[in-house]
């Protein structure tokens, strides 16, 4: 019988007390008095169990038939799932990409750097990992885990849901600009950016919240007792990443990419439910893309360059800025560092 042997309470106190209060390692000792030897009833039960199990074994482990010749059972192949270290690598890659993206956008202010990083993220999270696991879909897992106590959630999903949110509180929507493969693919097809009327843009920006609410409702409670993962079912781009998917997904993806040639990131701006959460959080971001009043020329080139309508009155709108660094690239003072009064390559200081 296992017994907690406690040096301090060896002599005094009853056995029950010792078991309650001792916190040392349990040591397994044989009881000299034989008080806890197995009782005959237990013995009988064990013998019975052994007997029945041997009968069961005999029933289920039949002898193989005599095939004749030299034939033996082939061993069925069971491909191994993705190894644990790759899952951890995913989380590490996400964290590293978020960190690098924040540095590129806030310190380096490098459009090329952000572009390269987003292409890398598109290759890894998009085409290599085939769009799973993604933070957009993880909204539903997190909802379900919060609503249903029986539902288990994997650590990767938790990390993918919360890491970009924390990054948004610190540095704005860095995830959208440099990590998200959905954003990257739309950024790459943006050939002829066209402005959307501001009133229409503002109206459309409410759509993600509606979509988010609907997705949370369907994932957490479902409709007619049937839970559904709307975001995954209607995701436009995972079908492209997997080169496989239902027709409506591929059609919506192609349509959004066509639309995205003229209007910047239609999915991110007007549909993405995760973008809605990020927009809310980045309103109070610690640091974000800023166009500082004391250094600017009032030329408005940045507002012209922003394909997302995120520069209003020559100020970056924190909620809608996806940190793509196009405004910095367009800035004449950014292109000619010599002309800057302060000098150095980062002209416009982050306040």
């Amino acid at each position, binding site marked *: 019988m296992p017994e907690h042997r406690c040096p301090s309470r060896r002599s005094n106190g009853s056995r029950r007390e010792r078991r309650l209060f001792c916190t040392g390692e349990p040591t397994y000792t044989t009881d000299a008095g034989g008080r806890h030897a197995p009782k005959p009833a237990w013995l009988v039960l064990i013998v019975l169990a052994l007997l029945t199990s041997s009968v069961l074994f005999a029933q289920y482990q039949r002898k193989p038939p005599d095939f004749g010749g030299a034939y033996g059972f082939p061993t069925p192949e069971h491909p191994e799932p993705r190894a644990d270290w790759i899952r951890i690598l995913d989380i590490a890659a996400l964290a590293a990409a978020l960190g690098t993206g924040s540095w590129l956008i806030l310190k380096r202010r490098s459009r090329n750097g952000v572009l390269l990083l987003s292409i890398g993220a598109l290759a890894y999270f998009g085409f290599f990992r085939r769009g799973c696991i993604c933070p957009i879909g993880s909204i539903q897992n997190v909802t379900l885990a919060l609503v249903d106590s029986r539902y288990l959630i994997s650590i990767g999903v938790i990390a993918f849901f919360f890491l970009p949110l924390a990054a948004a509180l610190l540095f704005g929507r860095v995830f959208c600009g440099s990590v998200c493969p959905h954003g990257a693919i739309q950024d790459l097809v943006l050939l002829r950016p066209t402005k959307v009327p501001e009133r229409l843009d503002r109206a459309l920006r409410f759509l993600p919240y509606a979509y988010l609410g609907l997705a949370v409702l369907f994932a957490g409670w479902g409709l007619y007792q049937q839970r559904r993962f709307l975001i995954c079912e209607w995701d436009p781009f995972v079908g492209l990443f997997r080169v*496989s998917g239902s027709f409506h997904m591929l059609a919506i993806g192609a349509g959004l990419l066509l639309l995205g040639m003229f209007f910047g990131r239609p999915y991110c701006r007007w549909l993405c439910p995760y973008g809605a959460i990020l927009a809310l959080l980045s309103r109070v971001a610690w640091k974000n893309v800023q166009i500082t009043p004391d250094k600017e020329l009032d030329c408005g080139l940045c507002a012209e360059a922003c394909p997302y309508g995120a520069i209003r009155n020559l100020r970056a709108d924190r909620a809608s800025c996806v940190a793509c660094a196009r405004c910095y690239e367009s800035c004449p003072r950014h292109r000619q560092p010599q002309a800057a009064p302060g000098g150095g390559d980062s002209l416009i200081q982050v306040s």
Partner: protein
Amino acid sequence: MSEKSTRRQFIDRSCRIIGFAAIGGAAGLLTHRVSGNAVYQVDPAKCTACDLCRTSCVLSFSAVKAVNQFDKCGYCMLCPAYFDVNSAPNERGIPSGKVCPQDALKRRVVGKVDEEDPNNNYYEYTIDETRCDGCGKCVKACKPPMGNGSLRLEIRYARCVECNECAIMIACPALAILRVPVPGISPARSAEEGKHA
């Protein structure tokens, strides 16, 4: 910016702290529900081979495939999962039709071959995974008492993209897709533990 923080900055900072607290709290709450690096697998005891594995997987060519467990297989000549027993028999009494619509279930004669009486031979049944679409018709036909139940549907991890949430798991009416902690075949866990309602 001025030394003293403005009202706007104060509000921002407060909101940020609240946001971090909310994120941390939610993440902390969820750590009770962490399943580790679990994977999805079909429980053959619950699986009804309903055809939803073929249609529900996010991949258009489903990651679920039929797998033959050879030590359970009877190596029958007249395999109910291979031959469509309802089809018209030919002159030797063997059904003419096959169960598998993709012709993915292959067989070959093994062991000592008796040329005269095909019923005296053993046949090994294997699945061609490049053709199998996971419809489960063979699995249904192999279920006892007709067959030994050696054929079952299995999520093949070489193909599975390991989604956040298995689309088949959401769709499965028999709650047969479970989240298993280790890559196994027959998880001995109840539906309440591994599967949401």
